[in-house]
């Protein structure tokens, strides 16, 4: 057991899977000799060679398309999209091919591909390096969308994604890469996809969120504890398909729910979470469900004060929770 950053945990998961299963390989821009622009694949090219850590051309559709083909023939590709912002050329491959092949072939074919992509802002990445794209994929049965909130979860979930027999999109918050550190076991462990996780037990208000916002919610909860407000935190971990049971339980626990996403509010993943709560929890609700999200603005601004205004912060979460608790 040693303390790893979020990105070190991701690297460890890939290294262990490359070692465990010869069918696993990595394909993406700069993943080989450079070791990835964020160093997620550092050293793997030297360890496993150019056949298993493949530098791809600047063509996301090809990165995913090659992966899908290999996956259908029994390989377990990890396709890296350098920034989630660049995933759009590959959307047709993901949505129309990967997501649908099992259904279309009546179970004759399946597609065990994992597509990794860093998302999210807060690193002065501006328009093309800050987007949250998960909502684009949360209406396509056949896909799974996983967004870990901690190094420990990142390792267990990525290994589960690689071993999953269907396509998994794995989004990693790029600001979390070197911000989050925790003890990560060296041994092999899996975290089930599709299961949300209670990150903090509380009785006054519930936060349901995912990704880096979980970390911010935890900090807000520690702050609010001093004011006597006891916060319950549910980490979705898998944003598609959603863990309905866990959402219903967490919402019913306090009857006061705050949903948080860094994505733009309208059409985001948390809108679906709100719908599940509305369908199932009416008679446990004690306050209107609240959403805290980015404003309806086309892109993350570059200017630091504007970027900060756009982003979710611990203070914004704490302020919303305070109001909910008083309600």
């Amino acid at each position, binding site marked *: 057991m040693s303390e790893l950053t979020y990105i070190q945990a991701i690297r460890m998961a890939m290294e262990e899977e490359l070692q465990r299963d010869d069918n696993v390989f990595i394909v993406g821009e700069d993943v080989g000799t450079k070791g990835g622009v964020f160093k997620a694949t550092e050293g793997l090219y030297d360890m496993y060679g150019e056949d298993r850590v493949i530098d791809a051309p600047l063509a996301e559709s090809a990165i995913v398309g090659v992966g899908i083909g290999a996956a259908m023939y029994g390989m377990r590709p990890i396709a890296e999209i350098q920034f989630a912002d660049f995933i759009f050329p590959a959307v047709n491959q993901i949505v129309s091919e990967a997501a649908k092949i099992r259904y279309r072939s009546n179970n004759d074919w399946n597609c065990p591909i994992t597509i990794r992509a860093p998302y999210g802002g807060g690193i002065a990445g501006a328009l093309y390096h800050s987007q949250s794209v998960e909502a684009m994929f949360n209406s396509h049965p056949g896909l799974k969308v996983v967004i870990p909130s901690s190094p420990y979860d990142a390792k267990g979930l990525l290994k589960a994604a690689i071993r999953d027999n269907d396509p998994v999109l794995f989004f990693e918050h790029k600001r979390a890469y070197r911000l989050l550190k925790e003890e990560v076991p060296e041994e092999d462990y899996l975290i089930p996809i599709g299961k949300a996780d209670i990150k903090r037990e509380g009785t*006054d208000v519930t936060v349901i969120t995912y990704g880096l916002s979980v970390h911010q919610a935890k900090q807000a909860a520690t702050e609010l504890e001093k004011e006597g407000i006891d916060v319950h935190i549910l980490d979705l971990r898998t944003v598609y398909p959603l863990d309905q049971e866990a959402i219903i339980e967490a919402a019913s626990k*306090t*009857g*006061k729910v705050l949903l948080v996403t860094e994505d733009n509010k309208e059409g985001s993943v948390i809108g679906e979470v709100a719908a599940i709560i509305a369908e199932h929890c*009416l*008679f*446990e*609700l*004690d*306050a209107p469900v609240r959403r805290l999200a980015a404003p309806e603005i086309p892109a993350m601004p570059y200017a630091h004060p504007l970027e900060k205004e756009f982003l979710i912060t611990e203070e914004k979460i704490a302020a919303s929770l305070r109001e909910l608790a*008083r*309600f």
Partner: protein
Amino acid sequence: MSLEKIIMPKLGESVTEGTINSWLVKVGDTVNKYDPIAEVMTDKVNAEIPSSFSGVIKEIVVEEGETVAVDELICYIEVSNGSNSVNDSDEEIVQQTGEVPATAAEVDNEQSMKLRYSPAVLKRAAEHQIDLTDVTGTGIGGRITRKDIDAYISKGLGKSSHSKVNEEKAARQINQTLSKKDIEIPVTGVRKMIAENMVRSKQEIPHAWMTVETDVTELVKYRNEIKDDFKRREGYSLTYFAFFIHAIARALREYPEINSTWAGNKIIQRHDINISIAVAKENELFVPVIKHADEKSVKGIAREIFELANKARSGKLTQNDMEGGTFTVNNTGTFGSVSSMGIINHPQAAILQVEAIIKRPVIIKDMFAARDMVNLSLSLDHRILDGLICGRFLARVKQLLENINEQTTTV
């Protein structure tokens, strides 16, 4: 000026609620920090609540006689912040003035959200047939929150409303049979507590009973030989009761099933052997605890009985003295009783009554002999215990007691 809340303090480790016996202040009174403001009664202990602030009592929320959970609001006190020194920064002043209208608004407009009910609150009100106008809201504008109604339900439908109904019923019955020379004694304080605990034990626990007869002739002889010397040396009496508790604690160590408590869906076998003893004081009854009785000598137990009884008589028992009992031994023999059926001290599994030691003719080897005999009467919670295990336990206690003499036992 700011409005502060005073809450029901936690007056003991296992204490979850308290009853306001009487208020020592009224609205408008000025109190200093640490002044007693109310007398509160928890499970058999009376205490005073000190004020946490200096200020003026603004509103009393909990009426006398009402029972509330620990940490619940009992009154509001207005605290003057005027003592702040001159070098206060502007920011702080802004904050203070900013606070006043906020709190004032909360108090004034207390009712603006009072009739806005959330689905969760309405559902609970319907399920428990609660008139929502009776519930105090702590949310914005006096809104009744889900927590408010949950607290109301746990209070209202719990034992207090039941006992209220019972009290009313009882009161009515007394009215019916009252004649001129009868004296009415209101049931309050410790008496009321005893009544409630006894009703609870008797109603909830399926009691079963058994009695064994024990020959303590040797014990009586031994004690008589050493008691005067002991009293002179130690300053307190070497009672029979100490020998009994000593033997019972040893037997409990061998039969841990008896040393259990009932916890609804499970039985908790207690590791520590803490013996509750009943101490009567006129019309009050206290049950202090001899902790780790199995680790103490007869002398140690005798001293603790002496100290606890003294504390009980002088009203100095603390919550700590009363907590943690795992088994009760009741010295009914003091009143001359030779047979009785004790009510179990909830949530313990059993109670043992030590009856009077009486010289009686007993047949030994087909001959009459004059022996000192004592009955040990056990009441057991039949949910936890059965006759077999209790029989073995009593047999072991009897064996231990019959073997006490100069050679086997040092005090």
